[in-house]
């Protein structure tokens, strides 16, 4: 009864701090037309579009209404999905449901961010605005401004991530040294990915360790960049997929469970909030559901590689455990043994991941796209040496509460 759905083409743009050579519409269409070319699909064959980005960071509301014509969306259904850091993952999953529903057969899902157009310094501070409207309420109703203050001291993405990292260090016994190793791996891997932003061939943990601590336990060298970039996938039902692609990347399982919002906000809402932001029950639930759909019983054995959403290196360790790829508290040991390297037993982020490239709306889409490239054998220089049968793509965002987990495979599965 389920409709088999696959990714048949991938397209992305070169990422950098400032893509001054293009405007947003041109950036997005670059990714879309790369994907269509890769899929050997013409615009006429596309039934619908799913799009998304973080509107505040680009300074345009509903940008698809203006740039729809640039990607050939006029006269077609366009669904806009935006969920914060997970936007790209949510857009990719939206692409799946659009085809799986039977309402459409061939769909383009595209996600992007052009940070440099905005006056924001980037995602790391832009997230302060999650609490902005609380200020209006607080002043309108004469409430204490504690709400606003609490949201500000969180320090946005970096502010949440430091709490999360220290909790994880306590839980697992890992140290800053392991964050150096993850960040160095991300930059080394990125050097093999021609679309990536922070490329550093041969980067070592010692190189990263030379950078200063900016907020404990993170060094400057641990932090993701703010990138301009876009990524797109072409999603199709089985008949089209088999006709167009030699090796489609099949959607096997997916989920996006919401957890509770970050600890300080929840404290204001009655003190019943998350006490350990590294626990991530939403990620755990999403993974369980996605694996169940995919018929995967033992992810440690059946998953061949993963693309984890890791703007900060601690998150690669945390989420690889929450997704069941390593036992609780052991991811850093696997890292030490080199298991998560490109040629390791469980390669994590062979593309360099979000730590090396962060066009925020697009970042979680890139995880899906990179898994698809690995399955299709199109990852070029950063292709993992082993055959990839099953891969898991992760997205993370909100104020620690949103997760997307997508399992792709080389066969439609059950």
């Amino acid at each position, binding site marked *: 009864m389920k409709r088999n759905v696959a990714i048949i083409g991938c397209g992305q743009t070169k990422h950098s701090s400032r893509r001054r050579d293009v405007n947003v519409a041109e950036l997005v269409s670059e990714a879309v037309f790369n994907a269509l070319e890769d899929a050997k699909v013409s615009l006429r064959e596309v039934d619908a579009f799913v799009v998304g980005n973080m509107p505040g960071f680009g300074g345009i509301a509903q940008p698809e209404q203006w740039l729809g014509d640039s990607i050939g969306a006029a006269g077609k259904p366009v*669904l806009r*999905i935006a969920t914060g850091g997970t936007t790209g993952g949510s857009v990719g999953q939206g692409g799946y449901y659009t085809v799986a529903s039977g309402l459409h057969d061939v769909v383009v899902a595209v996600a992007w961010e052009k940070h440099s157009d905005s006056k924001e310094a980037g995602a790391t501070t832009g997230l302060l605005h999650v*609490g902005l409207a609380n200020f209006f309420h607080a002043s309108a109703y004469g409430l204490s401004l504690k709400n606003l203050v609490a949201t500000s001291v969180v320090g946005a993405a970096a502010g949440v991530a430091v709490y999360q990292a220290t909790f994880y260090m306590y839980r697992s016994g890992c140290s800053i040294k392991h964050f150096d190793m993850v960040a160095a791996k991300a930059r080394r891997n990125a050097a093999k990915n021609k679309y990536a932003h922070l490329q550093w061939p041969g980067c070592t943990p010692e190189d990263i360790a030379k950078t200063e601590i900016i907020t404990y336990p993170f060094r400057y060298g641990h932090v993701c960049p703010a990138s301009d970039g876009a990524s797109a996938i072409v999603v199709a039902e089985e008949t089209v997929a088999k006709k167009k692609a030699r090796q489609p990347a099949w959607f096997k399982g997916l989920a996006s*469970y919401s*957890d509770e919002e970050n600890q300080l906000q929840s404290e204001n809402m009655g003190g019943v909030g998350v006490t350990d932001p590294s626990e991530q029950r939403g990620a755990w639930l999403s993974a369980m559901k996605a694996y169940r759909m995919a018929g995967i019983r033992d992810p440690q054995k059946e998953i061949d590689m993963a693309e984890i959403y890791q703007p900060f290196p601690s998150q690669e360790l945390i989420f690889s455990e929450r997704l069941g790829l390593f036992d609780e508290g052991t991811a850093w040991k696997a890292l030490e043994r080199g298991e998560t390297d490109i040629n390791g037993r469980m390669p994590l982020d062979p593309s360099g991941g979000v730590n090396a490239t962060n066009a925020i709306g697009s970042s979680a889409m890139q995880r899906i796209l990179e898994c698809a490239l690995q399955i299709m054998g199109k990852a070029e220089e950063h292709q993992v040496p082993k055959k990839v049968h099953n891969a898991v793509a992760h997205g993370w965002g909100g104020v620690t509460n949103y997760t997307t987990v997508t399992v792709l495979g080389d066969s439609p599965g059950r």
Partner: protein
Amino acid sequence: MRRRVAIVGYAQSHHQHNMQKTREDMVFEVCKEALHNAGILREDLDTVVTASSDFLDGRTISSVFLSMAVGAFMKDESKVEEDGTFALYYALMRILAGSHDVALVEAHTQGSTLNPHQVTCFTLDPLFDRQIGVLNDIAAAALQARMYMNRHSVSEKHLAMVAVKNITNAAKNPYAHRKMPDLSVKEVMSSKVFYDPIRELTMSPISDGACAVILASEEKAKKFTDKPVWIEGVGTCQDSYLRDRNIENLDSLQTAARTAYKMAGIKNPLAELDVAEVSEKFAHEELMIYEALGLCKKGQGKNLIEKGTTRRDGSMPVNPSGGALGADPVCATGLIRVIEAAKQIKGEAGRYQVPGVRRALAHGQFGICAQKNTVYILGGN
């Protein structure tokens, strides 16, 4: 459609200009009431899809502090950023895909937080139209109205007649914002001009409001209720950008309607539909909507309003609830139309009930000059 999907519960807030409630409270109350209306618990939900906008809510990731308020905590959820009818579309697709059975769809905007008309300036082409600073949704609607009126000899009186019909209908709707039971054409035509010919009473009010709908697959729907309202057809479409389309027509609405009619097997909408609930942000749009929905030929929308065909007691009632002219909490407006259409089918519309409704149409729009449109055909059996 691959599965039959039904609306089994709904709720909406009492829309008003400044609700004196936090967004979280407002949203929590409608979601709780919708679950109650469906006779189910939060535990019965498989998925939650919400609709809101970062710009309209005045915060980055508008949905982020609402997971608990909408009941999405530890649920498979997502958010669309546009009208609620698109969230319904996504929830419907999630059920049709076979991976979920019961969905809650929520949509809201508090227009009192940030003026929604100002926000529309940020949807303009940032490289040209926004820089010039003369356009917003009202200005664009005024251009559209004049083009349409000149082409088809429509007068300001016709626009006022639409406003009187909808705003007096709204007076009977306990949830509507703008209630003027004795409104006259003269009063509308003497209300304040914003951009000629758009006046205060020929455009929608700025409302705070939220609404929620519970969707269920056939098997679940039959368990939950004796009176499911089935989704028989759906269509959605986006037009070209303002500058690249002929705003005199609502082409994307026409495409969306045709898709929905085809799915529902409707050949003659005027004869086969019993009522329509449409999102007319401006009075002239309702006339254009009649035409795009195929209720009349091009340019003849004014005849329907002149003859009273679309009045509540006419042969093809449109917006017996008062429509968007009655209340316009931006992202919720289209989903409220779906609820009102479902209420008509179930006979729950109280003082604005149209007798004998079996099949109803609901329409949602988003963007300047109704750039994006979604059409639903709902049926009772």
